């Protein structure tokens, strides 16, 4: 089953004359349950592709379908609702709110869902336990290591039970041992929760572990190089 489909998507940054074509005619399907790596050199359009997949941005042209729904022209509120309920994000620089504890950070998505705070905190605590941070619930980000912070971020991304987990170079700021643990966590969550994972990475070793690789080259999807790893 296809969770996300891009069809002839174009995207450029900047205005009119100075606009830079970032994505050219990209078409791809992400199937439910797969773990998919997006690779390519800097400036090849990986991050822009991920933003489109995460409904953070809209394509200039082409079709973008999320779980069968045409979302290229959906309202900002509809996109926000989909991001809130169906998509989880993990960023290279964690993006935790420094003044909130790990628990509060993880419970943040529930704030925009109208979930009672107590219930939200309970679910956040359970998810922090799941990622191995049961003893760090009330620590603030500054009191935690990079690996722990990224675990908090992963917990926040999946606490709302999303269909799609997107990660933009999630291990870029981590040492290799910690990076391996985070990637292990992605695979474990994929296996346990059935969440579909798409992650941008520079690391060939990580890409090699993923069931499928999407290779970006100059704003185009290199279909020859892309595909399932045997």
């Amino acid at each position, binding site marked *: 089953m296809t969770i996300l489909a891009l069809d002839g998507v174009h995207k450029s940054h900047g205005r009119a004359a100075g606009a830079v074509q970032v994505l050219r005619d990209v078409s791809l399907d992400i199937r439910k349950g797969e773990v998919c790596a997006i690779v390519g050199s800097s400036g090849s359009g990986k991050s822009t592709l991920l933003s489109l997949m995460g409904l953070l941005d809209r394509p200039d042209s082409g079709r973008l379908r999320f779980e069968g729904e045409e979302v290229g022209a959906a309202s*900002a509120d509809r996109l*926000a609702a989909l991001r809130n309920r169906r998509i989880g994000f993990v960023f290279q620089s964690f*993006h935790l709110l420094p*003044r909130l504890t790990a628990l509060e950070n993880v419970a943040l998505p529930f704030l*925009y869902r109208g979930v009672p705070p107590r219930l939200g905190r309970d679910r956040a605590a359970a998810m922090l336990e799941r990622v191995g941070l049961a003893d760090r619930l009330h620590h603030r980000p500054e009191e935690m290591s990079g690996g722990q912070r990224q675990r908090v971020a992963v917990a926040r991304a999946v606490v709302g039970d999303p269909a799609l987990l997107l990660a933009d170079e999630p291990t870029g700021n981590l040492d290799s041992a910690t990076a391996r643990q985070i990637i292990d966590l992605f695979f474990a969550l994929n296996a346990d929760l059935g969440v579909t994972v798409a992650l941008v990475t520079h690391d060939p070793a990580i890409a090699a572990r993923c069931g499928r690789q999407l290779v970006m080259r100059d704003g185009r999807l290199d279909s020859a190089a892309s595909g399932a790893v045997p």
Partner: protein
Amino acid sequence: MADGESGGRRWRALAADALRNLGAMRQRSLLALLGIAIGTAAVVALISIGENAREHSMRQFLAMGADILTVQKDFSLSGRPAVLTRADVDRLRALPGVDEVAPLTMLGVEIRQGRTRLPSAVAGVTPEFFALVQAKAAQGRTLTEGDRAATVVVLGAGLARRLAEDGHPPVPGGLLRMGGYNHTVVGVLAGSTPNPVLPLDVDSTAFVPLSGVRRVSANSDITNLVVRKMPGADDRDVRQSMTNHFSGGAHPRPVMVQSARQLIVAMSDQARVHTLLLAAIGGVSLIVGGVGVMNVMLMGVVERRREIGLRMALGARPIDVCAMFLAEALALSLSGGMAGALLGLAAAAVYAWNAGWAFAPSVPSLPLGLGMSSGVGLFFGLYPAMQASRLEPVAALRGE
């Protein structure tokens, strides 16, 4: 939306979030809060002071005689019969609700004491006048029926003080020259505050018997009547029957009948204008405080772009982001407003105590102050909040 029923909970959670955010920017929030607090304090204090001042003068005025009415002749041509006569005094006294009537002739005369020459107001009065305006003698006595034909004078306290400036304070038994006659001083009145209802300032007037006015002036027509109504009588009825007395008959006479009520209305109108003016001044400082709030919020929007982007990625709708910043601005200005309201009341109390007034906290000033501060917060918070909600998630996440 499926979570429609939890809308209230959602807003409560958003408000709690806003308070936490403010706590994180403690120092800057505190500065903006201070601006709002000072603005609100100014509004509350100025309104309270204005109101207390009004109450004070009103109380003073009521104590002096809200039961007094006056009749003043509008104009009279020489050669025509006098507008106000002794007969009027008796006729008015007979009207229902009228307690006492005192006729009055107002003049300006030069008083001489030794070498001192002092132009002064002189009033010809009957003995009842002093009781009617509650004027008491500090030295000597006031005028009596026996003074009708005597060449005597009673001095107001302020006038006596001015006459004393040459080193010879007038005392009972002394002589003053007015209009070519030596008048014997029989009394000096105790000092009093001016009563706005009366056509004269008791303090700075020399009083001679009404029948003795002829000695100091060619025109001895009665110029005013001072009337005291019965304690229970409605001043409007009394005023009406007095007006009827003068406008009725074959020759309606041009007179003006004034009651304390009219003056009170005029005074409170004036006081209201003052209060409004003071509130406007306070409002200006509140607006300055609002600009401070806007500054803090705009800085916050710039500094927290990544946070805004993240919240959007986590599912915050534009309106959620807008509400978050509005709630923060509102929380800032409301807490500033509360602090300011207390501060303002305290300032008004100190002012009242200093001026020797009875302090009563102005009831409308509190909701007004709080309402204005939160209004200012919302108004000045709206622009930054809109700015925040219009950010594109991707750009905001990158911190651009």
